C-alpha cells in the first residue's frame, strides 16, 4: 500500500516528541476523523527553525508525513518553511495512496498552525499565512469521556 519511503518514516519517525516552552505549537486535525498532528517549533532570533518536534495520532501516512514535514522545515527560516507544501511532502515520500493525500495536507496545516502561534506570540505577521482552520478542541469533550 505504502511506498518504502513512507514505511521507513513510519517505522523510524524523525523528530518525535515535545519541545518545552516552544516558540510555536500547532495542533490540527480532529480525533473524530482519526488524525491529529501537533508540531512544536523552536525558532531562533534570526527566524531560523532550530528545532522541530511532532506528535501524531493517526494512520501510517499521518505519522510518515509528520516525520517528513519536520525534516523538511528543520534548519529553514520561516519564509522558506512557508514554501513547503503538501505536494513537496508527498514527493519527498515517493507518493501516497489517493485516500491518504489528506494526511499530507494536514502536515502542511500543522506547520502553518505552529508558525501562526509563533507569529501571534511575537506579535509579527508572516507573509501569506492565514489563521489555521482545523482545530483539535472540537473533539476534546469526547476524548475525556469515561468508559
Amino acid at each position, binding site marked *: 500500500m505504502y511506498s518504502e519511503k513512507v*514505511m521507513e518514516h*513510519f*517505522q523510524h*519517525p524523525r523528530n*518525535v516528541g*515535545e519541545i518545552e516552552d516552544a516558540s510555536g505549537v500547532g*495542533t490540527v486535525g480532529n*480525533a*473524530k*476523523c*482519526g*488524525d*491529529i*498532528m*501537533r508540531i512544536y517549533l523552536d525558532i531562533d532570533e534570526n527566524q531560523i527553525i532550530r528545532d522541530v518536534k511532532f*506528535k*501524531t*495520532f*493517526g*494512520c*501510517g501516512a*499521518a*505519522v510518515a508525513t509528520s516525520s517528513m514535514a519536520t525534516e523538511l522545515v528543520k534548519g529553514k527560516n520561516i519564509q522558506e518553511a512557508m514554501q513547503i507544501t503538501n505536494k513537496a511532502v508527498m514527493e519527498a515520500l515517493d507518493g501516497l495512496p489517493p*485516500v491518504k493525500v489528506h494526511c499530507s495536507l494536514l502536515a502542511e496545516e500543522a506547520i502553518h498552525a505552529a508558525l501562526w502561534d509563533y507569529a501571534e506570540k511575537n506579535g509579527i505577521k508572516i507573509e501569506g499565512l492565514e489563521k489555521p482552520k482545523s482545530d*483539535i478542541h472540537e*473533539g*476534546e469533550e*469526547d*476524548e*475525556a*469521556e469515561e*468508559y
Partner: protein
Amino acid sequence: MSKKLIYLDNAATTKTAPEVVEAMLPYFTENYGNPSSVYEFAGISKKAVTESREIIAGALGADQSEIYFTAGGSEADNWALKAAAEAYKSKGRHIITTKIEHHAILHTCEYLEKQGYEVTYLDVDETGIVKMDQLKKAVRPDTILISVMFANNEIGTVQPVKEIGEIAKEKGILFHTDAVQAFGQLPINVDEYHIDMLSSSAHKLNGPKGIGFLYIRKGVKIRSFVHGGAQERKRRAGTENVPGIVGFGAAVKRAMETMEERTRKEQELRDHLIDRVLKEVPYVRLNGHRTKRLPNNTNFSFQFIEGESLLIMLDMEGICGSSGSACTSGSLDPSHVLLAIGLPHEIAHGSLRLTLSDETTMEDIDYTVEAIKKIVERLRSMSPLYEDFIKKSAR
C-alpha cells in the same frame, strides 16, 4: 517471506484447509465435466455437487433442495433481500434489519430504499445485541422481511436468533439471517431457529473463496437474482463452480466434525487473550459481549491511538489483524458497528480485531500480547491525545 506469521484475521478470511484443496483437485483437470451435460463423464461432476449440497443441508437440518450455491456471502445477501423484496412487494414494502449488519446487507438496503422500500435499522445495546423491544415495535402489517445477522463480523456478538425467528414466524414475516461468520462456528438448525433464508460463504470456514450459498426454505417464493441457464433448480444461473462447491462441502464436513473440540480450544485462547490485554494494557476496552460472542473473536479499543498504525506495527512483528472489517478498509470512517455500540469516533478509530483459528497456539497469543503492549506504548508516546490526557491528569 521467512519471517514469523501469526495470522489472527480469520474473520476476514481463512486458510483453505489442505484436505479441502485435496478434495477439489480432481475437479479441475480430471472430472471437469459440466454437471448439466448428458454424458456419464459429466455425471461425476453432478454427483459431486449433489453430495456437497447434502453435506451442507445436513449441517443445517435442511433439505438438499433448499441449498442454492452462489459466488459468496455478498451475493447470497443481495439475492435474499432484493428478491424477497420483489417477490413480496404486493404484501408490503417494509424491511427490518439492524445497524450492525455487514455492508452486503446495509448497502443492499440502501439500494432498496432508492427503489421505494422502507427500511428500519434497529439499534443494538452496548454489547451489540439487537434491542428486542424495538424489534417487536418495529413490526408493521406491511413488514415483509426481517434480516438480522447470526453473529457480527467485527465484534463477534451472537444475536438471539431463535427469539427473532419466533417473532418473525408468529407475525408471518420472512426471516433471513446472514450467518457468514456463524456457520461452522456455532450449531445452527434452520427449523429450530425458524430461519427462512440463510447466507454463508465458504472462505470463512476454511473453504475456498468465491463460493457461498443461500438457504431458501421450501415454499418461500423468490425470483432469480442471476438469470440465465437452468442451474440450481432454475433459480441461479451460471455453470456450477464444481471445485468450489466440492471444496465447500469438504469444509463444512470438516467444520462440523471438529466444531466442538475446535471452538472449545479457540474459546480458551480467546479468553486468555482478552484477560491478558484487559489486565496488562491500560485504557483499553473489549468491544462486544463478554460471553455471547464467536469463539474465535476478540475486539479491543485502545484509547489515544489509531488502528491503522497499530495494524502496521503488528504486521512488522508478523501479526495479521484488522481494524474493523477488512471489507471496509476502502473507507476512512470508523466502523459503523463500533459507532452503533456507542463508541465515540476517536475511540472507534483505535480498534483492533484479532480472530483466531484452530492453528492458533498459546505461544502465538502470548507473543501477540507482548507485541501489543510494546506497540501501544510506543504509539501513545507519539500521540498528542495521550500527551493531553497525561498533562490533564497531572493537573
